[in-house]
């Protein structure tokens, strides 16, 4: 569940970037967009090349020994006291909320809790730590937003995306019915219970299409893959993008100004 009170740090000069495995292999543009948005805010971004995955897939599947081995390999990558930003609510949630429990009673307990305390979901970091001001450079458009369940409930950032999109003058954000309902991804849930998952994503796609928007943005690559993939397979007029790619593109990319 979300923190009752979140204490944001003051804007740092450097951050560590944890890219996540899905961003790395399938959506590197979202990762690049996140890094460039941070750099445009004057922050130096450090990307430890030895990072791989937060360990969540094994963790939620019950294979905690395997998850711990992977998570342990990440713990040593952030030696300085800089915030660690993650372009995903679900990997962020894993690292912030579950690392301390996963390492409880091991010699890495303290280190895991220390790393967990520095984890931030990237859009939350941009809005509430960097106090980013976005200047829209795009044509008028209508979008819907799907906030992942982990971003919403574990990281408590459901309000962040709409606030960022609200800064863009030419973007009309429309709300879907049952916005808070899960899209049916759930990591290995989509594979273990394909029919239930598809019933969930089909209703999610219908809700998005019913908004009248033709594109949606989301905080998480898992949801993106699921919703976009279902819409594409079923030829629905709905395509998706990671919110960071969208924000970067809308604000002129490299040419965008800091205001």
């Amino acid at each position: 569940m979300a923190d009752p009170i979140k204490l944001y740090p003051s804007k740092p000069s450097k951050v560590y970037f944890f890219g996540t495995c899905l961003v790395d292999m399938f959506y590197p543009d979202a990762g690049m967009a996140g890094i460039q948005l941070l750099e445009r805010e004057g922050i130096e971004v450090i990307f430890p090349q030895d990072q791989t995955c937060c360990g969540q897939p094994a963790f939620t599947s019950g294979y905690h020994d395997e998850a711990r081995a992977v998570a342990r390999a990440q713990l040593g990558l952030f030696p300085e006291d800089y915030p660690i930003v993650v372009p995903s609510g679900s990997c962020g949630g894993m690292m912030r909320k579950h690392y301390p429990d996963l390492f409880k009673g091991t010699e890495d307990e303290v280190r895991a809790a220390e790393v967990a305390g520095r984890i931030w979901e990237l859009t939350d970091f941009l809005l509430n730590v960097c106090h980013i001001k976005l200047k829209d450079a795009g044509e008028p458009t209508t979008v819907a937003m799907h906030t992942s369940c982990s971003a919403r409930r574990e990281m408590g950032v459901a309000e962040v995306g709409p606030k960022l999109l609200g800064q863009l003058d030419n973007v009309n954000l429309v709300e879907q019915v049952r916005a808070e309902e899960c899209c049916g991804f759930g990591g290995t849930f989509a594979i273990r219970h394909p029919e239930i998952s598809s019933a969930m994503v089909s209703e999610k796609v219908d809700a998005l299409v019913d908004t009248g928007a033709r594109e949606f943005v989301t905080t998480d690559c898992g949801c993106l893959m699921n919703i976009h993939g279902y819409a594409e397979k079923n030829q629905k007029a709905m395509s998706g993008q990671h919110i960071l790619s969208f924000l970067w593109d809308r604000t002129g990319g490299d040419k965008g100004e800091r205001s």
Partner: protein
Amino acid sequence: MSDTARHSPHHVDVKEFHPRAHEALHNPQIRQNFRKAMDGLMTKRKSAFEGWDLETLRDLGANVRMRALANLPDLLEQLEQKLTENSIKVHWAVDGDEACRIVRDICKARDAKTVIKGKSMVSEEMELNHYLKEQGIEALESDLGEYIVQLAEETPSHIIMPAIHKNTGEISKLLHEKTGTDLSNDVEYLTAAARLQLREKFMNADVGVSGVNFAVAETGTLCLVENEGNGRMTTTVPKCHIAVTGIEKVVPNLEDVSALLALLTRSATGQHITTYFNMISGPRKAEELDGPEEVHVVLVDNGRSSIYQDDELLDTLRCIRCGACMNHCPVYTRVGGHTYGTTYPGPIGKILMPHLIGLDEGRHLPSASSLCGACGEVCPVKIPIPDLLVRLRQESVDGDKLHPAKVRGHGAKRNAVEAMIWKGWSWMHAHPGAYRFGTNLAARFRMLQPGKMGSWTQFRTSPKLAPKTLHEQLKERGQ
């Protein structure tokens, strides 16, 4: 009767979750009935908490329950003593079988032939009706929903609203076929017709059986929450009243009840207050006009004390049976309660039933969740349901050598091939060089990516590997 058969209502095979889910998902009537009902309940809950500091109230509820559980053995002793002082007879049952036998013995001692029942999930857990029938005692459900389910020879598909899977038309047809009422879509007519039939039974029942919502240790009081008045009649009209309850329902003081009651009705049906709230503190006294001559309480363990032994799983016992987790669960909403094949369906069922039936029987339950967290978000007593699901998943595959599994039937879901896959996955992601080599190779040969990826591409297109990983792009940038 074997232990496991007892806990799978009407001996439904819990392991057949997938085929039942398939059936429910392809039944448009079921899908529509649940979607409509759950949407309504979610809206009502939301408006019932308007103007309340919900988080503070949930904290209060959680604290009441945690405090009660922290002192459970002492509180149970105190409860027994106070109930006895109030002339209520106390019985202890290790499992459902023993609880059934206790009820039967009380009935036999009174030469009872008919039992009228108020709503009780513990009696469902015990399969009491089925057992009594075998013993030649007729048990009739008096809660309207339970009555409908009983007429249909089904089990409840929700813990608060047993017949929520049926719409008015289906209920009308059922009542017409089973009791000869006219076919009608007029809810008032149908309710009145059912009430008429039930009232007659009430007057003649030998024994009344009810559940318990809260048992107050301080005063030896049994609290019963209900809407229809059937519970009150069950506990007052027959000469003998037997209350059955799980041992976890005890709370220390009367004060504790007010916080839990405020949370219970709002979370369950979105009601600010329940229609009837019964506080039973003993049999009829000499000067009183109504009430039973004798009152019994059966305190049922049935696996609860084994949950109690574990600091983490113990949280399961906080549950006050409001059903909010079901109402908000995207999986329950799609497949309905019968799919689970267990007495308690939905999120609470997924964390409670493995203890009652073992993880070998209930192996599919913990995985049937997208871990979206909606259940944990609405739980009035803050049970960390998603965390407990992950814990049970870990126990299902014995996936954590640091924390040995404790739940009966652990390891039943372990599969050699899957375990190997996770081992390989883990090795690759714990070795950055191997990971980069593998992901770079995949990006390079992305044209060879298979178009079909098992059950994923049955419903979706496959995600496309990017030509260059983020690692590579940043390396080129010198990062």
